[in-house]
């Protein structure tokens, strides 16, 4: 039994108890509901009257139970009637669409435009007070709820293969609706049902409280509260009991609805918050004390870094070095772990992922060595956007839609510098001009959606280079763009490299053509591992890993006669091959490859490959 199903037990049991109690009311050894006992009016709890007596000396407990019977009868009754009518309308509207949809679904939705209590009052105006007018009013009120739910579900189910198949086989629509679609829409109906019972009780008790609902002497919780208000000074408990009963019952049904929902649709449960907002949480790492870096230390040296979600390793023992002024391309298919490696360098990994091993030594502007993988949130925040910056793939999503471009760039500067007013504004305009946004004086006031895709990516880059970072991590910055715009953005990166010679760059991409254009060195990743590394020209000239070779062969501009696609797909982290991870897709694979994982080899100075057969790869 899953956790969400277990959580159903409590409200389910209480709801069942409440329903059983009111159903069994005639059989329970209760005092007469209408038996008055004027001399003992407002008497407190006693052996004969556990909850005391009311303003007419009637037994409160028995009125409470019988009152619940009336309330629940009306609420459940109208919930069922509304369910039947609403489901029928929703099924018809969702299945047939067109004119049928108009007279069923859209007509029902008009009711939703009116305040609920107002609508109930209108019906009562026309029909007068009483139990049945209430049932009718509530039925009308809640029919559209079901109609909408069933309509949406029907439309979904309607498109499924097995329904289409039945339709093409000439099955009568009525039969399809009842046999196939109805069982599929039952779960959302069940949720809706408990919700409607709860809110119908709210309206019923409210109208009864106003004297427009259940007619005395029939007991009802709303009426009991109404009369208890008059005797508040003498017997405050008379107000408390029906209030507790009413609120408790409604709460039970609401909880039942909530938990039914999460039990029936586990996806609806949201991911829990964000750990970075909780600095003192368990995820916070111990701050590392900075030490002086060696004079010739590289800008960034990742050594054997692993990233895992719980016990599942997504990135395994990755090593990567970036020297000042150098551009390293990180290449691989989706799921190879290249983006995660980039995110780990800025401490922006999703909450469920953690760096589980290895180091990422970075040399700061002051010449200190810090381990980016071990810094706490505050420590890495100070570097982020200042020394280490990131350009994201989808600028449309990565820019805040409700803030002007200028503000978003200014914010990046202000996060690390005390720049205000005109000086700040001038710097922002200068940055926008630098990244090639035309008419920057005007564009600072533009919202992201007012810019073209290419200009948005330029703005994103302006944010990233606002503080002259020493390490720029670009995560597939051209993937979401048109080919012509891609070329322009690549030129911009090339220009940035020329303008800031000391800046190191990690360029994450799956596009080898881009690598050739922008990078000095390339690191190829496959299934969470580095499989090959080396200077771009050398690797392209003579790949030392079958995967790299296959990637090069699949590039259109490669000059090859025909394009070779790599058969198969990246293995899932749950089913990693025990030997070489590429072996199942590799043309060179032998028994040795599937038996043991290959170690990193050095075919030439500055080159690394993780293949047993590197010498024979072409």
């Amino acid at each position: 039994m899953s956790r969400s199903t277990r959580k159903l037990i409590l409200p389910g049991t209480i709801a069942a108890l409440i329903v059983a109690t009111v159903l069994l009311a005639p059989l329970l050894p209760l005092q007469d509901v209408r038996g008055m006992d004027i001399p003992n009016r407002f008497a407190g709890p006693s052996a004969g009257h556990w909850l005391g007596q009311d303003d007419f000396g009637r037994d409160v407990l028995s009125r409470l139970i019988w009152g619940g019977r009336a309330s629940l009868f009306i609420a459940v009754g109208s919930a069922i009637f509304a369910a039947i009518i609403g489901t029928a309308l929703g099924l018809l509207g969702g299945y047939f669409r067109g004119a049928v949809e108009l007279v069923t679904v859209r007509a029902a939705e008009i009711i939703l435009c009116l305040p609920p209590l107002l609508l109930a009052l209108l019906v009562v105006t026309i029909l007068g007070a009483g139990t049945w007018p209430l049932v009718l009013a509530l039925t009308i009120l809640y029919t559209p709820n079901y109609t909408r739910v069933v309509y949406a579900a029907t439309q979904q189910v309607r498109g499924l293969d097995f329904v289409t198949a039945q339709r093409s086989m000439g099955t009568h629509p009525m039969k399809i609706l009842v046999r196939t679609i109805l069982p599929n829409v039952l779960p959302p109906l069940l949720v809706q049902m408990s919700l409607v019972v709860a809110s119908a009780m709210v309206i019923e008790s409210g109208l009864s409280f106003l004297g427009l609902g259940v007619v005395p002497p029939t007991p009802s919780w709303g009426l009991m509260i109404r009369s208890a208000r008059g005797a508040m000074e003498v017997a405050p408990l008379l107000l408390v009991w029906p209030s507790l009963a009413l609120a408790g019952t409604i709460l039970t049904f609401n909880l039942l609805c909530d938990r039914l929902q999460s039990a029936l649709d586990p996806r609806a449960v949201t991911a829990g918050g964000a750990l970075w907002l909780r600095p003192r949480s368990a995820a916070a790492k111990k701050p590392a004390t900075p030490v002086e870096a060696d004079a010739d230390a590289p800008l960034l040296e990742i050594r054997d870094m692993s990233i895992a979600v719980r016990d599942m390793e997504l990135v395994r023992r990755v090593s990567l070095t970036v020297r000042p002024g150098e551009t390293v391309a990180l290449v691989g298919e989706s799921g190879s772990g290249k983006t995660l490696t980039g995110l780990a360098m800025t401490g922006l990994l999703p909450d469920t992922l953690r760096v589980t091993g290895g180091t990422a030594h970075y040399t700061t502007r002051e010449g200190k060595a810090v381990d980016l993988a071990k810094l706490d949130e505050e420590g890495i925040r100070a570097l982020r956007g200042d020394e280490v910056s990131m350009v994201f793939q989808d600028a449309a999503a990565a820019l805040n839609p409700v803030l002007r471009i200028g503000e978003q760039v200014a914010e990046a500067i202000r996060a690390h510098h005390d720049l205000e007013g005109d000086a700040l504004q001038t710097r922002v305009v200068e940055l926008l001009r630098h990244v090639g946004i035309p008419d920057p004086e005007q564009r600072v006031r533009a919202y992201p959606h007012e810019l073209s895709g290419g200009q948005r990516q330029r703005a994103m880059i302006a944010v990233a280079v606002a503080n002259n970072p020493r390490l720029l991590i670009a995560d597939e910055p051209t993937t979401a763009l048109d080919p012509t715009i891609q070329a322009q953005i690549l030129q911009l990166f090339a220009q940035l490299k020329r303008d800031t010679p000391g800046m190191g760059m990690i360029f994450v991409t799956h596009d080898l053509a881009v690598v050739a254009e922008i990078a000095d060195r390339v690191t190829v990743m496959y299934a969470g591992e580095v499989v090959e590394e080396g200077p771009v020209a050398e690797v392209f000239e003579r790949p030392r890993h079958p995967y790299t070779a296959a990637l090069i062969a699949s590039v259109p501009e490669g000059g090859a006669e025909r394009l070779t696609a790599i058969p198969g797909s990246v293995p899932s982290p749950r089913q990693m091959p025990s030997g070489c991870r590429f072996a199942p897709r590799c043309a060179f694979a032998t028994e040795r490859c599937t038996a043991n994982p290959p170690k990193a080899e050095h075919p030439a100075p500055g080159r690394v490959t993780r293949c047993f057969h590197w010498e024979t790869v072409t």
Partner: protein
Amino acid sequence: MLRYIATRSLVALFLVWIVVSVVFLLLHLIPGDPAELLLSQGNVAADPQAVAALREQMGLNAPLWQQYIDHMTGVLTGDLGASFRDGAPVIEQIALRLPRTLEVILAASLIATGIGVPLGTYAAIRADGKADAVISFFASASLSTPVFVVGSVVILIFAQKLQWLPAGGFTPFSEDPLEHLQLLLLPACTVALSLLAVITRMSRASVLEVLQRDYVRTARAKGLPRNPILRRHVVRNALIPVLTVLGLEMGTLIGGTVLVEFVFNWPGLSGYLVAAVDARDYPEVVGIVMTISVLFVFLNLVVDVVNALLDPRISLVR
């Protein structure tokens, strides 16, 4: 932006026309004679002479189109007819009582938003923790307690037992501002409680959703500290759906403060409606329902415009 507001206003005007027409048709197309329906109580048949007189008074003998034109002219010139009970123009009572109802709703919305947004944001930040569980349960409990129960219990505690505040009643602001506010406090807080629950839940869900967005990650990538990220990027974006819900809830409340006004003896529009329904005073009921529906439409327009101001993308979509 201006063009957007103009189109939305036109749509709203159209909706108002529909609403007024529907209310008119309801009155005239209900099976049976409205005059007879009005005069009969339960199963007792109405006096035919009285029915005839009422038909004449209500103008029911004219052709339907004539009645429709008269009705629409009346609505346009602010003439909603005269009350059956005392013959006074319905519009006068509405003009007197509507501001009182709006006052309660506005005060409640301010209280609920002021507390609900920070509370929901806090719950989202602490999602799945103890504080979140407590806040969520509190929200469920206040959503589950009908407003008249809250009102009655609040009176029991604050007026009866502690005697801090008056149990109910109304003093015009112009007569005694302090007493007016004292009397406003309990009804406003009562309405605010359930609204607070809605806003807390909505804020929590909305903040959780926004926290997953790419632009929040960008804000972190800039190296911004936690609070500016929350303020400028998370809460600001999360507020948009919350305000939409608040607007819709306020619309529902215009017709839904009936119970609170009854409990606290607050002479607002909804209380007037209950009395009108109780007396089956048709012109009054029609006038009030129409006013509320028109306000409801208008409020939706305001919500749309405010949303467009908060989220500049909206005004571009047609």
